[in-house]
């Protein structure tokens, strides 16, 4: 990435207005993947001095400011109150500590990377995003639309929950991007199943979730049925990491195992 000027914003509004000036201006998140971009940036806007760091609990929700690093989240005791610490075990598998010391939750979400390990987990949790101008929106709506436009993410809200969340990252080595991410939860809102690194952006398996949520009891047969529904409703494709067929196999196997795990059967 080539950078013309670096601006240390003194207020969110200043950062926002500078961002609107031209599409060649950009917000600096953690900067972990800046090197992968060949883009030319006119003004790189830094949010480092805006106090957008920190994790706290508010009324049954965990609030994470957007510039909080992945490492800070991973090691925060507050995070353990969400899905029995699923965010820690997920983030723990994202590259190494050094990169997690710079990568931020805001950057991880707004980049909408297909390879994101974090997004599928946040999808099966109750996650809401707060933008400077647009205000609050669910993560699902943010991923599915472009309504937010060129705004600045300031805060991520995640509902606390006590139930276990299954997360599996299928990968080649510990430093690899996922071949497939599989995430399954059962909370008071019912079952949720998300698949990431399909290799496209993570999605919820809505039909399969609906099927499970209208059942009175879920046993082996229904689990198998739900797992095969996932393969039919979610679109998988091929890239250098795996072919479509293998991703389908993995999805079926791990959705099945995930459902069993969250149901303890």
């Amino acid at each position, binding site marked *: *990435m*080539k*950078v*013309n*000027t*670096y601006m240390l914003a003194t207020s969110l509004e200043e950062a926002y207005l500078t961002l609107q000036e031209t599409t060649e201006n950009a917000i*600096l998140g953690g*900067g*972990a*993947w*800046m*090197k*992968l971009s060949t883009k030319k*940036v006119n003004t*790189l806007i*830094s949010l*480092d001095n805006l106090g957008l760091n920190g994790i706290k609990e508010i009324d049954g929700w965990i609030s994470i400011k957007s510039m909080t690093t992945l*490492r800070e989240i991973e090691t925060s005791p507050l995070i353990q109150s969400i899905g029995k610490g699923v965010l820690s075990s997920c983030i*723990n598998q994202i*590259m*190494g*500590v*050094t*990169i997690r*010391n*710079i990568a931020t939750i805001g950057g991880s979400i707004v980049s909408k990377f297909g390879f994101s390990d974090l997004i599928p987990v946040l999808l099966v949790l109750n996650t809401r995003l707060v933008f400077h101008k647009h205000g609050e929106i669910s993560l699902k709506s943010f991923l599915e639309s472009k309504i937010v436009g060129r705004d600045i993410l300031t805060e991520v809200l995640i509902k606390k929950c006590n139930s276990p969340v299954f997360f599996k990252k299928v990968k080649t080595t*510990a*430093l690899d991007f996922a071949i497939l991410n599989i995430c399954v939860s059962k909370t008071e809102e019912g079952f949720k199943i998300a698949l990431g690194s399909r290799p496209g952006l993570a999605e919820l398996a809505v039909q399969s979730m609906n099927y499970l949520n209208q059942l009175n009891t879920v046993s082996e047969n229904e689990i198998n049925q739900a797992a095969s529904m996932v393969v039919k409703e979610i679109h998988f494709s091929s890239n250098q990491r795996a072919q479509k067929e293998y991703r389908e196999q993995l999805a079926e196997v791990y959705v099945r195992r995930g459902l069993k795990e969250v149901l303890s059967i």
Partner: protein
Amino acid sequence: MKISLIINGQLRFVEVEPGEYLLDTLRKINILSVRRGCDNTSCGVCTVLIEGKPVPSCSYLSVRADGKSVTTVEGISDEAEKISAYFGDEGAEQCGFCNPSLALTVYALKKELIHPTDEQVDQYLVSNLCRCTGYISQKKAIKNYLGDQS
């Protein structure tokens, strides 16, 4: 742009470009233990400590370090010398291109984690790649170092 860095405890003023990365800045001013291996955060040989935390200097903008403390292995030479003895005992040295950054990360680990498990140590050091040793000798050396120092 002119920035100030507290490099290994010493205040230095350095002229940098807005898009310049810390790895280039440090090598430019002759801090040569910080090396370029992959240039995209994956190998670990450019690791430095910013305010005590290990980060990949290849992908960390120099302007972001303005006013901050930057530690390289030159700043922890007593500790590096100790660690090297443990590596020597296990034959874990080999080419050594990655060893200054590994020593630095082990040092940061020791400060951050209390009585870590073997798996926690491996996870902390996972992005310090080594192509020479096959890792096991390094793991033994690091385990012995952490055990003796705690």
